[in-house]
């Protein structure tokens, strides 16, 4: 087992260390940090916006780029929320699978949604599962070849593209929400008002927060692994755990600038985003909205996400994992000295930003049929 894992990791390192992939990690981290830092925009939009750019790339490079964008956007979202108190994003192995196992896996994927729906949301979650299955029946029936719900349209013969659906339901709604709620993202931010004076962490501060970082890293990762949980839950649970563990006098500071209260949810957030790749890459079940969009990207590349992915496409599987190590180093190098400059980019006005986001969505949707038909 260990030998296989070490071989896989070596494959991942070899694939990641190709100059184009290093460039993709760097670009992904930069673009993700930038987009994630814009108020009202989260990792889903960041990943969706970059999808058209990945069409021309090799699947491994494309996925490395999208993964970089994802954790970059999480990092950028944290920076945004810390600097201006406006959240940039919402959260801030089996090798011998038989058809019965796949069936069980499918049932798990469909029911996990309702299991994590929370009190009062089970009916709603199940109804949305049924709606999703209804939409999947559009197109040619794979068993009999009969056309279902196509209304004579040639475009509907192949059914509704998953990526289009994921972008429409997760990414486009984020953009429309900004239009509908003018107050959700203010017109622009004055970077001078942010007041960045000292960005260095002192020894005393580090000593205070490092146990919180360690605890929240583990908790966030395991929360992220749960299908349907995502980074938001990781963030909230880490914050809750840290508040419960803190002494009473420290608890009073939570929500008023406590370093532990700040470090815990942001660490949990970042760890959960990495954890959400586990169900995506091993089972083909997206752990969050962003990984659902990435699942669509994988399908568009012609890769079947699921338990066989790391046998069939070990380069993509391991490259995504190994690139995260490199990406996190890049994020530190990029973000620590560049935060003051990134913050100035927050001044992009809403009336320019929103049409650009809608343009990327429309463009990606128009390009998608072209690329998937040729792949």
């Amino acid at each position, binding site marked *: 087992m260990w030998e296989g894992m070490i071989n896989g990791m070596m494959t991942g390192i070899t694939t990641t260390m190709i100059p184009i992939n290093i460039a993709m990690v760097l670009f992904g981290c930069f673009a993700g940090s930038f987009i994630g830092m814009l108020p009202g925009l989260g990792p889903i939009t960041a990943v969706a916006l970059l999808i*058209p*750019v990945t*069409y*021309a*790339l090799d699947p491994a490079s494309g996925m490395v780029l999208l993964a970089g964008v994802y954790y970059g956007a999480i990092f950028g979202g944290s920076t945004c929320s810390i600097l201006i108190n406006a959240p940039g994003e919402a959260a801030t192995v089996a090798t011998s699978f038989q058809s019965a196992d796949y069936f069980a896996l499918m049932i798990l994927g469909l029911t996990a949604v309702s299991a994590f729906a929370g*009190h*009062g949301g089970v*009916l*709603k979650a*199940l*109804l949305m599962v*049924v*709606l999703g*299955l*209804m939409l999947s*029946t559009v197109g040619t*029936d794979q*068993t*009999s070849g*009969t*056309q*279902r*719900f196509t209304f004579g349209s040639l475009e509907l013969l192949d059914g509704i593209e998953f990526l289009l659906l994921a972008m429409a339901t997760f990414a486009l709604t984020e953009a*429309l929400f900004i*239009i*509908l*709620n*003018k*107050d959700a993202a203010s017109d622009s931010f004055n970077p001078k008002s942010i007041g960045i004076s000292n960005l260095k962490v002192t020894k005393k501060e580090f000593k205070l927060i490092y146990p919180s970082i360690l605890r929240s890293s583990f908790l966030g990762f395991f929360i992220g692994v749960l299908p349907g949980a995502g980074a938001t839950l990781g963030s909230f649970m880490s914050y809750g755990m840290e508040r419960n563990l803190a002494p009473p006098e420290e608890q009073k500071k939570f929500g008023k600038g406590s370093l532990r209260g700040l470090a815990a949810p942001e660490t949990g957030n970042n760890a959960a985003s990495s954890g959400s790749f586990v169900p995506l890459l091993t089972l083909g079940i997206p752990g969050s909205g962003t990984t659902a969009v990435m699942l669509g990207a994988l399908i568009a590349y012609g890769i079947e996400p699921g338990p066989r992915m790391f046998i069939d496409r070990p380069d993509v599987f391991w490259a995504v994992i190994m690139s995260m190590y490199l990406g996190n180093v890049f994020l530190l190098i990029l973000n620590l000295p560049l935060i003051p400059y990134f913050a100035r980019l927050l001044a992009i*006005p*809403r*009336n*320019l930003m*929103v*049409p*650009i986001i*809608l*343009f990327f*969505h*429309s*463009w990606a*949707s*128009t*390009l998608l049929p072209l*690329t998937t038909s040729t792949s």
Partner: protein
Amino acid sequence: MAWEKVGALVMLLFSIAYGLLATKIPLSFLAQQETFTSRTMPYALAIMGGILSFLMLVLPTVNPSGKKTLAQETRGMEWSTAILLVAMMLVYGLTMKWLGFILASIIFLLAGFYVLGERRIQRMLFTAVLLVVGLWGIMSMLLGVYIAPGEIFYHLGIL
């Protein structure tokens, strides 16, 4: 009416319409003799959708005081702007084949900026042209993705 009840009603109507449309799925003579046909799954989904949405409609709302009504949820929202922008996205998608990526995108962006209140022509033009031409350059020249020119250019004899 609570927001989720409206959603349940919409889903109930959708499930009924879906079920009725499922009866129109063509079946061959041989398929009609089988137990499991192309209509079976849609029928099952329509029934499940109907039952679940009906239950959501009739069962009491969980924590009703914490749930907003449709009017509360949508108060102050800029519906006209949102609908206009969505319509523009549709027009953009439909015209891209005729006008080509560069022209259609620049027009879409300029119109979008205008709808959202931007009036500085220089800033609008600079942003739209730079973004679109820059992306076209990256996609077609750097990444090698073929982006077809608009059909209008062939009709006008320019290409």
